[in-house]
């Protein structure tokens, strides 16, 4: 056992396990666009609430739909949606954080206040606002959660830019006459990746959880499309009768998030080792 621990760390099994877990999920998610064992919306009175078996790996739900197929589809939806959320919020975070952190001053004050305000704003209300302007649907959930998560990235990017803006190499770049835009995005930006990567990981996890939460509150992915969060919330009513219905999407979320966390931990360790 002792040896196993040392071996695990030395071989950086975090990376491998993380890769395997995420990889499996991603493969299933992509596969779901082309093929699922059963139709994701096919209902059957006779097949209702079947416990997991070889026929239905994860069992069936209250409509007799195959949960495994729906989980596959859910992974696809959830992973895409959360990736987009991270993409939006991280890009916005970099843009805003870089500018405010580097230049400071009044603009920084104003943007930080707005960031604080958005941060304190209930995400559900924000989602309602976005949806009432743009209508419901996946893309708008992405947008509203993208806005919700932006402040956290702004904060991180900003503090990193503040840390680096007076560093020697930036100072020298300024002396060389490098343009501000170039300093921001070519000189400084690559240096915050390691910190940023960590927050992207956390952000990705939060996005999955938040997307699930949105669906849970009924304003996310629309039925009959499956998303892991929506499935989990639907399943809650059948906890006693069909616990597998809740466990399947719940554990799948844990699986993906954990896989991704391990993956990023593995990457971090690898980077450290290189150094």
């Amino acid at each position, binding site marked *: 056992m002792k040896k196993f621990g040392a071996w695990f760390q030395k071989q950086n099994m975090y990376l491998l396990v993380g890769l395997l877990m995420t990889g499996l999920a991603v493969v299933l998610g992509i596969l779901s666009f082309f093929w699922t064992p059963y139709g994701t*919306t096919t*209902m059957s009175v006779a097949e209702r609430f079947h416990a997991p078996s070889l026929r239905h790996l994860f069992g069936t739900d*209250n409509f007799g739909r195959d949960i495994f197929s729906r989980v596959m589809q859910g992974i696809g939806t959830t992973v895409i949606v959360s990736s987009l959320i991270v993409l939006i919020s991280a890009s916005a975070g970099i843009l805003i954080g870089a500018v405010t952190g580097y230049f400071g001053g009044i603009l920084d004050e104003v943007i930080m206040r707005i960031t604080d305000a958005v941060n304190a704003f209930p995400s559900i209300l924000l989602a309602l606002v976005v949806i009432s302007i743009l209508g419901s649907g996946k893309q708008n959930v992405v947008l509203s959660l993208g806005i919700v998560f932006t402040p956290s990235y702004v904060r991180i990017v900003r503090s990193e830019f503040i840390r680096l803006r007076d560093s020697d190499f930036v100072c020298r770049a300024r002396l060389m006459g490098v343009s501000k835009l170039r300093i921001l995005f070519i000189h400084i930006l690559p240096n915050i990746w390691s910190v940023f990567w960590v927050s992207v990981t956390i952000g990705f996890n939060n996005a999955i959880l938040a997307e699930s939460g949105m669906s849970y509150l009924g*304003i996310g992915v629309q*039925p009959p499309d499956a998303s892991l969060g929506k499935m989990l*919330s639907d399943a809650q009513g059948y906890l*006693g009768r069909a616990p597998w219905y809740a466990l399947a999407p719940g554990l799948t979320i844990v699986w993906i998030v954990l896989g991704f966390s391990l993956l990023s931990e593995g990457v971090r360790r690898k980077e450290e080792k290189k150094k």
Partner: protein
Amino acid sequence: MKKFSITLMALLLVAALGGCAGGKSSEDKSSASASTVETQGNGTTQDQTPAVDPKYGGKVVVGVQQDIDSLDPHKATAAGTKEILFNIFEGLLKVNENGSLICAVASDYSVSEDGLTYTFTLRDNVKFHNGKNVTAEDVKYSLERASGLLDGTVLVSSLQTLKSVDIVDEHTVQVTTGSANLELIYSFTTAIIPAGSGEAEGSNPIGTGPFSFVSYKPQEGLVVKKNPDYWQEGLPYLDEVNFKVVSGADAALLELKGHSIDLYSYLTDSQAAELANDYQIIAAPSDALQALFLNNKVAPFDNVKVRQAVCYAMDRDLANEFVTGGDGTIISAAMLPTLKDYYVDLNDVYGTGANVEKAKQLLAEAGYPNGVEFSVIVPSNYEAHVQTAEVLADQMKAAGINMSIELVDWNTWLEDVYRQGRAYQASICAITCDMTPSYLMVRFQTGHKKNFINFASSAYDEAYKKAEASMDLQEKAKYYKEAQKIFVDEAGTAFIQDPPITIALNKNLSGYKFYPIYVQDMSTVYYNNK
């Protein structure tokens, strides 16, 4: 559907003759209901004639879904509030479990020949919870306040035809109305409250009901205690009832499993199955009309053939089976089977199963040979509607009807479907109703404020007007039936079912009564000694 066999017809007959059906003997009632209550599905009906003696005392926690919207019985509009306040307030008359009117604060009443004057005799010694006797003053005040005679604001809209409320003597009140309407008698269930209490600063709700108000905390619930001076002798049994707000069906299930609530309605079919070992499960029709409402003004439903196609394509049996475990009652028109004299079974027009061929044919005729697509707005807080939408969306695909679901929160639904806009294509929800047929039918007249499906048919309007104006019950029923037939032929909307209401009740409780309206009467509930 034999449960509510004493129908409005019989009831109105009584009303016309004057006098009260209730308040006689309890055996009468119980035998009547015992014979009429039917066991349904996997639910069991609460034993109405217990072998054991009722036990006094005890506390009960009732789980309710919605928080109270007002503690003022005249201002309260939410059904969820009315079901609670039923235990605190009473009107001159009161609905009993059969749907018939019994006398409460009044001991007797009579209606004039022309139907314009109502005379109520007050019952002796009915006491408010503050210990004071109910006087004619109080009755006058309450009715004037509710009808808007007091300050111009109509609080109970069905009473707006009232002209005056006059005190004849200490025990007699006379009410004059502007137009004769047989259904008006139902509005005298409006709560009687102490004179002036509606305006007095900081007053707690005081009524004459079996329970008196103790406390209310937003989001937690309302607590009532036994009214020892209640005029119906021997009632209530319980010392205290706590109407506890439960945050949703899932939370309710957890609380039921944790035995922290004794009674909960609105269970889903599978929840009921899950609780069957620990609770008495009782199912009855909820007396609501669930439908796939089609906006008659918006494409593709501005075409009657498309509407009919949807009616043919819809597999209502399947929805019933999936969502309500087969306990629902399939309906086709805007009338409850409970209102037997006005109800006409039109399920054969489109059939209860799916008729794919017919639907396809109609679609082709309407110019949609490749099928139609539309989106259905569903309020996300109603699980049953969401599930129904899922089932129908999947099942109607076969007929080339592609329905995409859009979940919205309740206020958005109100805004999009019910208020100004009405730009939606279709929606699944339900209309709850009271014991009057007009309540359901009035809204489908052309241009009516509540006509949110924009149904327009002059034939229907005509039939409805005749029905409303008629002072003869037979004739009234005939016109109502005619209107229903017109509505169904026009496929104004695709009705689905009267979903069942399923209740979980603590095994030690007896005496629970179902009402055809949305109330929880706790006065007859008691702990048995089992």
